[in-house]
């Protein structure tokens, strides 16, 4: 994986900071979730941080990210302020969706997040629509439709790739393949190799979804190709979901093998940065300290924020 000539130290540290921010949020949720202070189902991204972060490193604010139900990593990687997400999780009116969305429905158009959806697959089409919008307005921009292997079962996956290819649209189909649809292994829900399907429509790329550098490098190639040609591309990132589909319990399916040391995208990146002398242990520690402070402040902000007025529902 480690092609250190192709990544600058600042880029490596940025990946590290973004992944750790997501990780710390997950850890906070694990701490408090059983107390029902967050009354919303959470689909945690523990173990999957590298995919969103490695891709979003190449996106600008105006580029669009269309997310499904597992939102936290993508949203934070794209730039959604942590405090807005936390306030949403805590059900407060200062949340990114004004408390009307919860964990699965995040909104931050300033950072190219025009909403996210909890019905698997449909958000793929919305990313294609954003790409159509860029094309019709002659704007430079890339849309990313991010989805899991479960979404590849749905007709909208095919329909969206077909239209994006026919119309020639600047969209990245980003498959964050955790190899599970709820508790169903991919072998039981998806017959063909999704990358082989995609290859009928567009160039495809591959990365190790537990390795931020691998995702960073493949995404760089895919997104430059999209920017250059204005046409779609597909990036397949197998990864591992550490938790159950929803909630704060660890995954314990017999056919899933997770080594939390070896499979951890953050530890992998740490070793890489240190090994390549792109960062010192002190620098990494400093990043963590800064993020811990940021998280504390965001938690405080969320908890101090008002709940929405119930009068809003009176007709």
């Amino acid at each position: 994986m480690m092609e250190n000539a192709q990544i600058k130290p600042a880029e490596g540290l940025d990946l590290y900071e973004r992944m750790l921010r997501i990780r710390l949020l997950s850890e906070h949720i694990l701490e408090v979730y059983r107390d029902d202070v967050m009354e919303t189902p959470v689909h945690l991204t523990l173990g999957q941080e590298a995919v969103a972060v490695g891709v979003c490193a190449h996106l600008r604010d105006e580029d669009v990210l269309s997310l499904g139900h597992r939102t936290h990593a993508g949203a934070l990687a794209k730039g959604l302020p942590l405090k807005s997400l936390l306030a949403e999780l805590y059900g407060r009116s200062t949340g990114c969706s004004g408390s009307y969305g919860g964990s699965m429905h995040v909104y931050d158009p300033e950072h190219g997040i025009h909403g996210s959806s909890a019905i698997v697959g449909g958000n793929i089409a919305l990313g294609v629509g954003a790409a159509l919008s860029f094309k019709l307005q002659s704007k430079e921009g890339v849309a990313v439709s991010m989805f899991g292997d479960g979404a590849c079962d749905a007709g909208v996956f095919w329909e969206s790739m077909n239209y994006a290819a026919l119309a020639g649209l600047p969209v990245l189909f980003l498959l964050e393949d955790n190899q599970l649809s709820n508790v169903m292994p991919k072998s039981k829900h998806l017959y063909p190799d999704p990358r082989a399907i995609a290859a009928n429509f567009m160039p495809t790329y591959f990365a190790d979804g537990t390795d931020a550098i691998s995702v960073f490098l493949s995404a760089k190639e895919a997104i430059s190709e999209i920017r250059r040609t204005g046409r779609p591309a597909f990036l397949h990132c197998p990864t591992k979901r550490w938790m159950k589909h929803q909630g704060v319990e660890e995954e314990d399916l017999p056919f899933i093998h997770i080594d939390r040391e070896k499979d951890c995208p953050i530890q992998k990146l740490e070793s890489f940065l240190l090994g390549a002398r792109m960062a010192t242990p002190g620098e990494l520690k400093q990043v963590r300290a800064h993020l811990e402070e940021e998280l504390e402040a965001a938690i405080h902000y969320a908890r101090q924020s008002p709940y929405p007025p119930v009068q809003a529902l009176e007709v």
Partner: protein
Amino acid sequence: MPWSRFEKQWSIQEEGRILSYKDALREAIDQAMCLDPKVFAIGLDADDCYGVYGSMLNLSHPERVLGTPISENAMTGVALGAALTGMRPIHIHMRVDFLPVAMDQITNYVSKWKAMFGGKPKVPLVIRAVVGRGWGCGAQHSQTLHGMFAHLPGLSVVTPATPRDAKGLLLQAIALDEPVLFLEHRWLYKNEGAVPEEMYTIPLGKGQYLRRGDSLTIVAPSLAAIHSLQACEEHDLDVDLIDPRTIKPLDRELILDSVRRTGRLLVVDYDSPVCGFASEVLALVAEEAPEALLAGAQKMTFPDVPMPASGVLERRYYPDPDRIAAKAKAMISRVKGEGALV
């Protein structure tokens, strides 16, 4: 299919610049596209040589008319994605029967998107669909479905009956920053009426009287409004006839005012009867003006079965002006208090 045999319906005689319903729609789209470069039309066969029954032919900006594959569900998501990122799409379907293919996007995405993010997003999306029976087309090409879609919170449902309303309501729908389902009855496409040349809008939720009278209120949208008016004029019925223009939002006050005066209500709705628009209007009056129902409230709709193909059955399935007139006469002749609430 011999459309010409029945395509032009009885229509209101008006003075002014006369335009067909179809050309009024076309003019609205053309003017909107000329005014705002963000307006574009997209849909299955939208860009072919027939131009959606002529409603999109010879536009000034053909480059903004996009055809699509037969992928209604994804394409609704594509239109929504474009609407969220600065465009004003008009997604067109030549038959309303194709909309259920896109039910995930319409139900879970389009109608929810604004509320689901705290009211923040702008969703300037118009979904046009042509409704109504054809000619022996059977169950899958003859539906109306406006009641089913009006059931969804977050979606307006518009049903113009006249060329003037077709243009003004479509321009209003395009101008709004929220999703609108715009349902055009196929049988009205050749009807003519006075249509102003300039751009104008008609607000959603404002119904209109098509005829004034004191003995019976008829509420009827879309083609049913025109057939009801024909029935009233041909049979000289003393009827207050309300065309709600939009199923949702509904002009509740207009209906209640009329029913309070006439004491009798007939809803003529060319849609299925259960949990539908007609039931909604009866419920409105039952909730808000039960005293006015003492001389009866009835609905006239399709039977609660899918449309059959045979002409004999198809003609019986759709109400028509003669049957509306018969029903109205029977209701008017009933003395107040007699047969209440039936």
